[in-house]
């Protein structure tokens, strides 16, 4: 909860201890400990609002006043004349502290502060979302007066103000503790709200030119910038909510003109990928979320500890549900992983698990109409088993499980492919990939756990990012890097075509690298020549880390080069995928050349090992040839060489050559799909078997560190996990897969854990020079933004409204040669079609254009037919109409 604080674990032993007395109890704490923390250690709770253990002390609310006495020069302990804020004062030797429990003065001071805080606080509790879990309510009961002496009219504000589409601010509830603004400035570095004005303001309805002290957004309505037509916008009709006067809710703050504020690069007032955390740490109900507003009370909610499924960080979350409906998710507290912060996607994007397109019963193709119709489990399993057995005999079945599986489910897929279908044609990588990557994963990732950790990032002297944009692709890594950088321990450099806002916020040194040139740049760094000597030197420092994103697989020779760089410098290497299930899939061998635990399929000993764990007799039982990879499986299924496909959660938009892949699935012989929601591929499936979304099953995600992140089941339903469905399917095919329960899977996994034999050899692909676009062509740089057109975000319009707007970034040179400026629209033409987006001029190499991979209006694989490194032309620039800004 917001008011409790735990001392940071792992305080270094050499820190000097200081003995202090608090309420007559002597306690020794490390030097530098705040009084409020020292009191916590002996179980004394001092009331507080602004204090937060992960934020810097501010002393903004004054609720934590205590009496402090310290020894003077002669050693006489003398009490300070006035109460002190215990959240900003560090202990000193011989200090004697009297809290509200022993000092009447402190108690009276706290009562006084509480009374002042409540003077202008509205009687909103019945309509306030915080009611029932409100530190102000609680502490007003424990440390406040029972009745109010204030008889005047309270100050009010028009409300609620929409700071973003997701976050609403009721300013009269705000106690100006500044936790929200301090969080935004200190932790993610997106100060999109700040404290404004001075003084107390006027009673409700009174009108004068003064701006009372309040929290506000950098929004034109509040700060009077971005006058599109010179007008400051006021309340906007939103059609979504009403304020207390029956007026429409305010889109932005009231129009006090203070000055102009920063815009974010896309021309909008700052939004933040981490803004939801402010709602959770606000000690009152001033910040609320549009999604959860008025939906329930804490006593209605049943909470389940869980793990977020949207990226590979494995952030701890808490899922609150009421009567079968998930109403909100909160950040869990896990100091080793996400501390107390999560991304907005992890917090708000949960509706996808309960949309109408979630499949409830198995579907089979009706023989007459050719439509998918609901069927019983026994019928569908029998049909699927018969078809798959036939296809396995006829030419084989390709297995494409996708990257969103839990460890247990992925294991069942891996075992099913090998034992039931007798094939190594299995590949989880539903995205751009390469054979080189498969070798890299087998060589350097599978079976290597907890080598680089979040703590390791925090203590690393240098971190090099390759093919990874942490703010978009792994938010928790971004927060950790920023924390480490601000603490002065760590420096960061990044191989990217331009300095993103994310890399600016971690003060990353940019090694400008156009898409495709990563391999050569990495080789140059390894050689330590010229410009790169300094970087090579910092990578040689003890504890330095190279974080490589899954995108590097698209660059031939890139992963080879990064392994060589790690070898040359001694830096530790970690692979950071985008999806929650990717790391686990590598671990259990969902790759054509890999068995569970990093065992190579080509290694006879490894096969014997796995076969004996699986209770198979001869090693001949497991295929020893490296199987087809993702692209080959699809191609051969389309051409009929493979007779069937077993599909997991795959979004066709994620595949390079989306159209071709879709055609391949359509042409494929017998197709069985295991999906949570019907997808574009369902219409080509012969049998669709529903599997449980994360809320309806328990399981484990392996995060990028290789750390197991187990989570519990939120809803008791009859929905079956992938592992259970595959177990039934195997039974239908006459094989006992033994993955029907988590216990069974865990037993087998622990048997298969340790492999000390030979690993897959390192990839050895010659770095190819970056493609040089011919005249008039440009090279595409692209990646996925955190908030984009992903299916995981479906059903959450408030969150979608906080996404960064899709833009096309061009260099100043390109902009002038095309005759465009910021805000004009530019059309990017690829082999399949075109994408038109507003321009954002960015310092970057001249022949490179950047646009988001899969955002609304910019789905490159389908719309352009190219991905990162592809060639495009720029066409038909369209001038922005006079004065238009990108909004």
């Amino acid at each position, binding site marked *: 909860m917001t008011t409790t604080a735990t001392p940071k674990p792992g305080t270094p032993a050499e820190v000097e201890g200081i003995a202090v007395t608090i309420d007559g109890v002597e306690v020794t704490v490390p030097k530098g400990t705040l009084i409020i923390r020292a009191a916590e250690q002996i179980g004394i709770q001092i009331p507080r609002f602004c204090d937060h253990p992960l934020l810097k002390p501010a002393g903004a609310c004054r609720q934590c006043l205590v009496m402090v006495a310290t020894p003077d020069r002669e050693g006489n302990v003398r009490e300070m004349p006035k109460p002190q804020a215990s959240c900003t004062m560090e202990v000193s030797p011989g200090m004697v502290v009297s809290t509200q429990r022993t000092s009447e003065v402190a108690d009276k001071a706290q009562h006084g502060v509480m009374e002042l805080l409540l003077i202008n606080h509205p009687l909103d509790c019945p309509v306030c979302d915080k009611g029932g879990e409100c530190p102000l309510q609680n502490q007003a009961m424990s440390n406040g007066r029972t009745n109010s002496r204030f008889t005047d009219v309270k100050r009010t504000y028009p409300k609620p103000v929409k700071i973003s589409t997701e976050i609403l601010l009721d300013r009269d509830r705000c106690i100006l503790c500044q936790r929200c603004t301090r969080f935004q400035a200190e932790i993610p570095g997106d100060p999109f709200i700040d404290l404004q004005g001075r003084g107390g303001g006027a009673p409700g309805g009174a009108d004068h030119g003064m701006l009372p002290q309040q929290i506000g957004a950098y929004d034109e309505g509040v700060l009077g910038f971005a006058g599109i037509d010179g007008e400051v916008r006021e309340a906007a009709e939103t059609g979504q909510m009403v304020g207390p006067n*029956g007026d429409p809710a305010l889109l932005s703050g009231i129009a006090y003109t203070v000055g102009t504020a920063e815009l974010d690069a896309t021309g909008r007032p700052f939004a933040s990928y981490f803004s939801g955390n402010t709602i959770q740490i606000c000690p009152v109900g001033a910040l609320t979320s549009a999604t959860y507003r*008025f939906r329930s009370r804490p006593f209605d909610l049943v909470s389940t500890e869980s793990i977020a499924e949207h990226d590979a960080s494995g952030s701890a979350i808490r899922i609150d549900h009421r009567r079968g409906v998930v109403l909100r998710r909160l950040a869990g507290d896990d100091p080793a992983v996400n501390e107390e912060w999560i991304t907005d996607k992890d917090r708000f994007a949960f509706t996808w698990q309960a949309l109408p397109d979630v499949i409830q019963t198995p579907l089979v193709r009706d023989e007459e109409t050719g439509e998918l119709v609901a069927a019983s489990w026994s019928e569908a399993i029998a049909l699927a088993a018969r078809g798959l057995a036939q296809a396995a005999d006829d030419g084989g079945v390709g297995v494409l499980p996708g990257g969103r599986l839990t460890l247990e489910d992925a294991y069942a897929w891996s075992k099913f492919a090998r034992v039931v279908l007798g094939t190594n044609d299995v590949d989880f990588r539903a995205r751009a990939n390469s054979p080189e990557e498969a070798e890299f994963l087998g060589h350097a990732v599978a079976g290597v756990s907890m080598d680089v950790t979040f703590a390791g990032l925090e203590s690393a002297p240098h971190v090099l990012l390759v093919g990874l944009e942490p703010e978009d692709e792994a938010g928790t890594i971004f927060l950790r890097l920023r924390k480490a950088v601000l603490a002065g321990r760590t420096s960061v450099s990044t191989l990217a075509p331009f300095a993103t806002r994310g890399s600016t916020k971690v003060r990353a040194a940019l090694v400008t690298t156009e898409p495709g040139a990563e391999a050569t740049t990495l080789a140059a760094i390894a050689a330590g020549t010229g410009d790169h000597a300094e970087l090579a030197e910092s990578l040689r420092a003890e504890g330095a880390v190279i974080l490589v994103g899954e995108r590097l697989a698209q660059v031939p020779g890139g992963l080879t080069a990064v392994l060589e760089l790690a070898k040359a410098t001694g830096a530790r290497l970690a692979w950071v995928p985008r999806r929650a299930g990717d790391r686990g899939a590598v671990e259990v061998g969902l790759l054509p050349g890999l068995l569970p635990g990093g065992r190579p399929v080509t290694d006879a000993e490894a096969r014997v090992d796995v076969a004996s764990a699986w209770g198979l007799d001869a090693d001949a039982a497991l295929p020893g040839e490296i199987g087809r990879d993702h692209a080959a499986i699809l191609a051969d299924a389309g051409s009929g060489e493979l007779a069937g496909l077993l599909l997991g959660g795959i979004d066709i938009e994620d595949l390079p050559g989306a159209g071709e892949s879709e055609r391949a699935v359509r042409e494929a012989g017998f197709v069985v799909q295991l999906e949570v929601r019907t997808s574009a591929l369902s219409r080509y499936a012969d049998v669709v078997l529903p599997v449980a979304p994360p809320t309806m099953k328990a399981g484990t995600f392996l995060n990028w560190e290789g750390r197991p992140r187990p989570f519990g089941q939120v809803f008791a339903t009859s929905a079956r996990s992938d592992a259970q469905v595959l177990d039934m399917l195997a039974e239908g095919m006459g094989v006992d897969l033994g993955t029907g329960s988590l216990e069974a899977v865990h037993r087998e996994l622990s048997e298969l854990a340790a492999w000390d034999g030979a690993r897959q050899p390192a990839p050895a692909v010659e770095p190819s020079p970056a493609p040089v676009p011919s005249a008039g062509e440009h090279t595409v740089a692209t990646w996925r933004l955190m908030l984009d057109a992903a299916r995981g975000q479906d059903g959450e319009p408030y969150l979608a409204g906080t996404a960064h707007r899709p833009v096309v970034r061009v260099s100043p040179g390109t902009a002038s040669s095309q005759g465009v400026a910021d805000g004009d629209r530019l059309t990017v033409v690829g082999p399949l079609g075109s994408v038109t987006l507003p321009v954002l001029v960015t310092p970057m190499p001249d022949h490179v254009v950047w646009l988001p991979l899969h955002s609304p209006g910019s789905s490159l694989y389908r719309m352009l037919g190219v991905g990162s490194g592809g060639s495009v032309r720029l066409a038909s620039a369209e001038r922005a109409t006079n004065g238009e800004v990108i909004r």
Partner: protein
Amino acid sequence: MSDETTPMPHERGGTDKQPASSDVAKPARGGQGIGEVKGVHAASLIPEPKNAVEALVAPVAGFGVTMATLFKPVVTEQYPREKAPVEPRYHGRHQLNRYPDGLEKCIGCELCAWACPADAIYVEGASNTPEAQYSPGERYGRVYQINYLRCIFCGLCIEACPTRALTMTNEFELADQTREKLIFTKDDLLAPLREGMLAAPHPMAEGTTDGSYYQGEVTGPTADEVEWVRRNRPDEPSLESATAAAKRGSARSEGSAGAAS
């Protein structure tokens, strides 16, 4: 009951109606019956007659109360043929009240559900919107249910209600045959529109706040509210009486404004 020989209250004087021996009264299943006291013979508990007179009237003494009651006024309720009146503050079925202009008083805060010791109340709040405003202010009760199989009519909920939306009526006939019928929903609980009220949703009266409603400053629908409903729901049945009420209201306020000047 610590004293083994003390008869249970229901056994006292029961001798003339049924066999007195507790041995006989013991149920056939052999064990001791509930409320029975072991080893006491009820016959031994009847006091011996003291004199001749007592001995004479003893056989009919038990009818004394019956005889005396014959000549007193009858107190038997003729329910359900005649309904008995209840006290004015009797705790009967709940009601969700409205403001005089027809907006609902309930803000969906769930304090009633919180206060309920029997967990009989279920509420879900929601946001009012300019298109559909049910209560003054931002929040209204979208779902409201009381389960009368659970409700113990303690009245804690109506004390918890911050807007006096929830009160109790004197209606006590709450028996029915199915579980579903005894879960009353918002439709069942909402007070009927009184003469002049305009059915929600409609906007708040112009220039008022939720506070004005609470303080009783809104006394009926305004012309603007009526107009809004006429535009958005021309078939609204409550329009007619609300129109008349709005006219009366504006005439009154003009009158008072005139008087003030």
